């Protein structure tokens, strides 16, 4: 049998703006199943805009370009349909929702996804078993699940909860938006180990980060540098090391010189 690596995500000439301010200026990116792509770049380059546009945040307007996810026009789908098709965004700032319990939230999310796929709701015992397994994976405290969603969680607990949710929802594409920001080294290790356990041949990741540190733990197949809304340089994991040593200025100069 010939194994053909499928194209999962294809972003072509993506331009997007918020409140009239142009942020993405013709971004191109291709992600295949099983790959981990790191997107790095200086502040204001458009990193978080990319994740917001892919997840379907309403305040961003796409003015040009296409995003295909497994052959479907991703930009046409509502945020919930993108999620149910298999896109998962781990938020940079996960919000607190008092009054909605973690467990109830996850049960609803999983069963809505199953409904979308034409499946019956998950059995309660299977759900609890899955919860236990995945919680152990990110070393999440059991008491957190009975509490309200992220309410009173520390920064590290919130990020771990994002990875826990990702583990529960089993997406095809995981987008990590600056998941490392604000984490101490122990939390960073836990979160990264969680992500690494979720890596497999079918699942792809886009890891958005400002710092190379995270990529010591989650080793990417490709590293892209985002600057002024476009990918200006791509390479392998060694590019991240180079950026760590030399900063972003040489990239900026290269770009200015070429333009």
């Amino acid at each position, binding site marked *: 049998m010939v194994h053909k690596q499928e194209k999962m995500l294809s972003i072509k000439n993506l331009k997007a703006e918020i409140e009239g301010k142009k942020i993405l200026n013709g971004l191109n990116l291709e992600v295949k199943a099983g790959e981990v792509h790191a997107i790095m770049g200086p502040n204001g380059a458009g990193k978080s805009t990319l994740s917001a546009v892919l997840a379907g945040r309403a305040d961003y307007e796409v003015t040009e370009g296409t995003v295909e996810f497994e052959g479907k026009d991703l930009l046409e789908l509502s945020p919930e349909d993108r999620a149910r098709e298999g896109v998962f965004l781990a938020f940079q700032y996960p919000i607190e929702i008092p009054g909605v319990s973690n467990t109830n*939230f996850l049960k609803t999310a999983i069963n809505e996804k199953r409904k979308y796929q034409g499946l019956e709701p998950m059995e309660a015992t299977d759900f609890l078993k899955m919860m236990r397994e995945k919680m152990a994976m990110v070393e999440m405290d059991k008491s957190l699940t009975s509490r309200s969603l992220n309410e009173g969680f520390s920064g590290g607990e919130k990020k771990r909860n994002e990875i826990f949710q990702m583990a529960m929802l089993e997406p095809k594409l995981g987008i990590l938006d600056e998941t490392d920001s604000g984490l101490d080294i122990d939390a960073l290790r836990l979160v990264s180990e969680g992500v690494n356990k979720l890596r497999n041949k079918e699942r792809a990741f886009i890891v958005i980060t400002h710092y190379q540190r995270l990529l010591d733990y989650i080793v990417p197949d490709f590293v892209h540098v985002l600057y002024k809304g476009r990918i200006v340089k791509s390479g392998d994991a060694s590019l991240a090391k180079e950026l760590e040593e030399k900063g972003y200025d040489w990239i900026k100069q290269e770009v200015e010189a070429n333009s």
Partner: protein
Amino acid sequence: MFRISLFEFRIYREIMLVENIKAEFNLYKNQAEKSDFFLKREEAFAEFEKVGFPTTKNEEWKYTNLKNIVNQSFQSTCESTIETELMLSHAFLKDLTANKLVFVNGTFRTELSTIIETDSSIVITTLAKAKTAHSELFNKHFGKYAPIEGQGLNAMNTALLSDGAFIFVPNNKTLTNPVIIINIADSTDVNVLCQPRNLIIVEKSASLTLVETFYAVGNNPSFTNAVNEVYANENAHIEHYKIQNQEGESYHNNFTQIFQEANTNINHVTLTLSGTLVRNNLHFFMNGQNCNSLLYGLYMPHGTELVDNHTRVDHAFPNCFSDELYKGIMMDKSVAVFNGKIMVHLDAQKTNAYQRNKNILLSNEATVNTKPQLEIFADDVKCTHGATIGQLDEEPMFYLRSRGIPADVARKMLLNAFADDIAERIKIPELVELLEQEIEKKI
């Protein structure tokens, strides 16, 4: 000439209900025994004649116009012709193990009511029976707490009350099961006026769980004008739930006065699910130290419904605590009024009083008029108050949707979460469940 006749017509219309009331009282007067009770009613009637119905010129009624009530004619003694079972099918919590008192159009219905309490020292009966059977208690408490002076609607209730519950819990007694008072207004045949009047006496170190429910059936308008007097003697504990779910053209005015002696604990929750016009007046008076008064409310009007909650908490003694939270989910062109007044009297040092009113507008056409008020005469107190009116936040919506939860489901989850602050104050699980179902249905 034409204009004058129109003017006269308007005057006539406005006094329609007043004429009803006068005629009814005259009828009653000619038949009644000249007892103390009668004198009290006569006095109340005189006050009603003097004060009449409140108008929007009265600051306390600025946003709540009773013109649709006073311009109509209502009958207060009409029999209901609806079948028993059908009638109770409208009632919430009908399967809960509880002592049930059912009043249809203000009249007690023995065949629908059940008393399961076995302790004979605890009295669960009607006001009409208690007047003679427990005359000493009745005379000691009746009309002592709910003010009549300047209060036309209270005066009208006192003058022409239909019937109601009389509950007496003696010292150190606790009811095993709650008492549910089910009030049904049946306007199938005519416009109906119900004036329930409850008198609740909970003695020293005794406790009671009380649920009042209100329903309406029939296509004609109904008007419920209820008065509750609740007396909590030292160290008493009362859980008090009020559920208003009167559909169709139904008007409801409710005056509840809770009088607390020292060391008492009262938890009161008002759930307003439906009603054309609902006005709640909930007053607490703390007449001793170390009292706890908890007032919670949830309203979710739709269509053109109006819900008005006026509360007043009087801190008259030191070291008392009050906590108040009213929440509203506003749909369509509905209107809500909130006016919470906390009075901290000169002697009430070390008072802790908290008050909040929070509203979510689900429509551009809904209106909320809110006025949290504090009047503090003592100097060593901790009091806060505040109000918010806003829309459902976009951020939590996006978060839930980004996990695959459709917008309508996410919205319900967030509104349930909003209501949860109130639901968690309810200690009857069946009632909490019911509230969740109602939210599901209404939104």
